[in-house]
């Protein structure tokens, strides 16, 4: 019993970081109807920003953390301006966006390999290693921090989307860009805001992810699991992305806890295929076409 609870808590913790990443996929999908595969690259850069801010520049952790978020936000917006805006301007077919996203993603990965190198790097110990003892259940401090930060960020995001004017404009643009433009909404600016939000969350998720595991140039391809979570929940739906992420996180920790950890990714990708075949809308998705 204790052990199940233990696994559940670990699952919630990693699931919450998946959620931070997954909402970025979902936000962009809801506005532009394509899966932004450059998102993984932004997450990877976020992990590196945080790493160098802490080690090289000796910044206090929280400064490095938010710094990484802001730098990643700028990168995400830059990717949008350079790789997608020109395509949007001439109504390019969907496939071009996919190719452009792949290109941006490969560029980021290889840029890091060329400049920083392919080696694995480990964050210094920021939080003391000894876990909390909650009535016999041990919760790592880092896991706790991951969970709390992620939840705060997600609540803030939902508040922004649901209760601010810009949030309503994002919802309106996701529903119908033409009608939104006719209301006086600058849909181009809304797109920038969406990439900025996704990029910031990607950056801080990258830092958390990098602290939990290690930092290396291909870390972005692992974050594809948050994409699976977003598809599982239903791309384009924020609650879907969050719920999908928690389910995936828990499923993964249970699998690696009770079976072999090698099965973990096998299960995740099988889940993706099963969803795409049997429930392409996901749990709460808005449309089924052109997801992957």
């Amino acid at each position, binding site marked *: 019993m204790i052990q199940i609870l233990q696994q559940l808590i670990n699952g919630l913790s990693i699931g919450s970081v998946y959620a931070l990443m997954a909402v970025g996929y979902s936000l962009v999908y809801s506005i532009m109807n394509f899966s932004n595969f450059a998102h993984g690259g932004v997450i990877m850069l976020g992990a590196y920003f945080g790493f160098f801010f802490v080690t090289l520049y000796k910044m206090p952790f929280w400064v490095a953390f938010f710094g990484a978020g802001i730098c990643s936000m700028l990168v995400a917006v830059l990717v949008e301006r350079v790789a997608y805006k020109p395509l949007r301007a001439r109504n390019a077919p969907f496939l071009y966006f996919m190719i452009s996203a792949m290109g941006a993603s490969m560029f980021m990965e290889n840029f890091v390999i060329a400049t920083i190198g392919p080696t694995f790097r480990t964050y210094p110990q920021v939080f003391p290693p000894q876990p909390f003892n909650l009535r016999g259940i041990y919760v790592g401090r880092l896991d706790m921090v991951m969970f709390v930060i992620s939840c705060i960020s997600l609540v803030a995001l939902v508040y922004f989307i649901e209760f601010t004017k810009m949030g*309503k404009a994002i919802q309106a643009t996701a*529903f*119908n860009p033409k*009608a939104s*433009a*006719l*209301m*006086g909404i*600058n849909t181009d600016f809304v797109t920038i805001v969406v990439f900025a939000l996704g990029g910031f969350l990607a950056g801080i998720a990258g830092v958390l992810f990098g602290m939990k595991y290690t930092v290396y140039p291909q870390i972005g391809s692992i974050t594809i699991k948050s994409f699976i979570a977003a598809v599982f929940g239903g791309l384009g739906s924020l609650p879907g992305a969050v719920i999908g992420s928690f389910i995936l996180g828990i499923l993964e920790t249970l699998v690696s806890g009770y079976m072999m950890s090698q099965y973990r990714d096998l299960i995740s990708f099988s889940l993706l295929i099963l969803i795409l075949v049997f429930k392409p809308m996901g749990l709460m998705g808005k449309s089924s076409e052109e997801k992957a």
Partner: protein
Amino acid sequence: MLEIKDLHVYYGGIHALKGVSISVEKGEIVTIIGANGAGKSTLLNAISGIVKYREGSISFKGEPLPKLPHLVVKRGIVQVPEGRLIFANLTVKDNLMLGAYLRSDVNGIKRDLEMVYELFPRLKEREKQMAGTLSGGEQQMLAIGRGLMGNPELVLMDEPSLGLAPLMVQTIFKVIKDIKSMGKTILLVEQNAYKALATADRAYVLEQGRIVKSGRAQDLLDDPGIKESYLGVKVNNRG
């Protein structure tokens, strides 16, 4: 107030507007009638900045009109689009408030919201309802109300009576007159030519991307050619 000169719009190889010139004076209702595919929506979308025009000019209150949709709205021209295009996933109130997106005059917004609710009491009753659950007629009311929330000087209306029951059509045309009496100017596109001509001050007839006739709406109502092609009236041998 609005002055369009020699406007040409292309969709790829399709030449949708072939040199359209029209003008709208302050306080008028001007209607553009024409068959399906004549280019009516294209003309309104060119004004709104939704479609780009290759040649020609559009000026508003003596100055060239910007070509980006949000800047056009900022200048005081709001379009109530064909098919309503309401935000079905948001509440009625949210839809109306999005109409006021560019405004920051809290009191003015409040006043206009009351004005819209007075015009369409049905919307007030359904304030918190998801807009997608409204009936067709109510959605048209919402689309018009949402447009008015932008406090426009010029309202562009694209087929507001489309797909509505006769009673609702009556209501909508009465509202159009009410909007005029608020001092707003209206450019109305319609397939319901009889109703449009009966409501408007002046009219243009658009055929295959060209203005083929124009004049006082009353005169066009009596025009034999118009009667035959647009009003479905058989005209006997003249003279």
